[in-house]
């Protein structure tokens, strides 16, 4: 049994909120910065260069990469041998968000009720997904999600007969409809299979996967490559103003599903695809 104090969780989550909003992960950073080398549009190159400069300014001057510092989404893996004895884990995570978004000069973008829409002024509550795993570690992944791209995300309940061609069409439809609204070049997270909600969760989680960590199932890996090429052939380009860099990556996660269904969820993220993981 390993005991973890809620105060440690609060501090770590707070640091994660600040860090995620000022620096991209190495794989995301280098892919965005390298994209200018292959972009064919002159205006597209100009925009990609501005995005490179934006990352440097965010780093050096501690200004958030994007003003939409997102709703804080967490994926938490709790080792079965972990014990938290001085409070609730959910409360500690929310306290960490409160502290990080306040002390880190991050925007408070959360309203307490979808219709009454009163800002909670501390960016809580977070959206937290828990999973129990073997071991004595607590692994926390934070993905602050901006809503320009979140609003363009889609879910399709396809028929088994639609097959892989139906999946490809669904992904292209979502990206085409998103166009300039989702701040391209985007990262496309896809969840195929499971149930209605499982596919959406997989699509979100796929956005947090490193580009170096490729799927082990051959058809999934091939589909990621094919869809990246097809999306970049759409012509949407950086900022949606035309070009050959519409997406930086397509990450697909899959799961078992029902004999009657083929759920496909597409969670679109802008080029500020923020995610950070810490293990306690």
């Amino acid at each position, binding site marked *: 049994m390993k005991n973890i104090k809620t105060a440690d969780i609060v501090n770590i989550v707070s640091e994660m909120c600040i860090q995620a909003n000022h620096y991209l992960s190495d794989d995301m950073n280098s892919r965005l910065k390298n994209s200018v080398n292959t972009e064919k549009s002159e205006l597209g190159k100009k925009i990609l260069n501005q995005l490179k400069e934006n990352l440097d300014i965010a780093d050096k001057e501690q200004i958030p990469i994007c*003003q939409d510092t997102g709703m804080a989404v967490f994926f938490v893996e709790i080792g079965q041998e972990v014990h938290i004895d001085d409070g609730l884990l959910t409360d500690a995570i929310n306290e960490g968000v409160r502290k990080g978004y306040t002390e880190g000069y991050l925007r408070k*973008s959360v309203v307490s009720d979808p219709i009454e829409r009163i800002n909670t002024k501390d960016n809580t509550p977070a959206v937290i997904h828990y999973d129990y795993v073997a071991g004595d570690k607590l692994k926390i992944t934070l993905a602050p999600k901006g809503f320009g791209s979140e609003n363009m995300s889609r879910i399709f309940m396809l028929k088994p007969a639609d097959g892989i061609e139906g999946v490809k069409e669904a992904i292209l439809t979502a990206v085409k409809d998103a*166009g*300039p609204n989702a701040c391209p070049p985007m990262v496309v997270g896809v969840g195929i299979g499971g149930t209605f909600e499982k596919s959406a969760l997989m699509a979100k989680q796929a956005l947090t996967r490193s580009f170096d960590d490729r799927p082990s199932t051959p058809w999934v890996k091939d589909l990621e490559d094919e869809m990246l090429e097809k999306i970049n052939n759409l012509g949407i380009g950086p*900022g949606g103003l035309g070009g050959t860099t519409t997406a930086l990556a397509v990450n697909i996660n899959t799961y078992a599903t029902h004999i009657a269904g083929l759920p496909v969820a597409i969670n679109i993220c802008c080029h500020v695809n923020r995610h950070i993981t810490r293990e306690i």
Partner: protein
Amino acid sequence: MEHKIQTPITSEIATTLHSGDYVYITGEIYVARDAAHKRMKEALDKGEGLPIPIENSTIYYMGPSPAREGRPIGSAGPTTASRMDKYAPQLLDLGMKAMIGKGKRNPEVVDAIVRNKAVYFAAVGGAGALLSKCIKSSEVICYDDLGAEAIRKLYVEDFPVIVVIDSDGNNLYETAIKEFQILN
């Protein structure tokens, strides 16, 4: 083509700008997004005046992150303009001449842009740190209780934007894509 322009942006200025042009804006502009637009609409519905001088105004759709000490503003990139489509035609008819945001506009907004000889610019989405460097001052004008959604007056210098929809209704989002599209 590149232009350097000074606000207020009038119809005379707007009609010299064409879809695809790169423009650097200097001068005063206003900031308003979803909640502020809703309140302005409610004020107009009640027969009250608007809290900002709308004639020849430029509105930037944006909600900044908080400013650190000694800085005018935090990260300050554009938000999705289509959420303001419901309100934009009325404001254009009242004299607003330019909008800065990102993303598509609906046909009613395009018609109102043409009717009023106005212009819709895009700033680069997700470049909030970079764009904040062109903002020299920021002052909350009203609706302070809305936090990041309050109406602000900014003074910007060489603020970089691209003309997406010009006063003739040309739309860069539609034309530019075709140039780079590879049909399979």
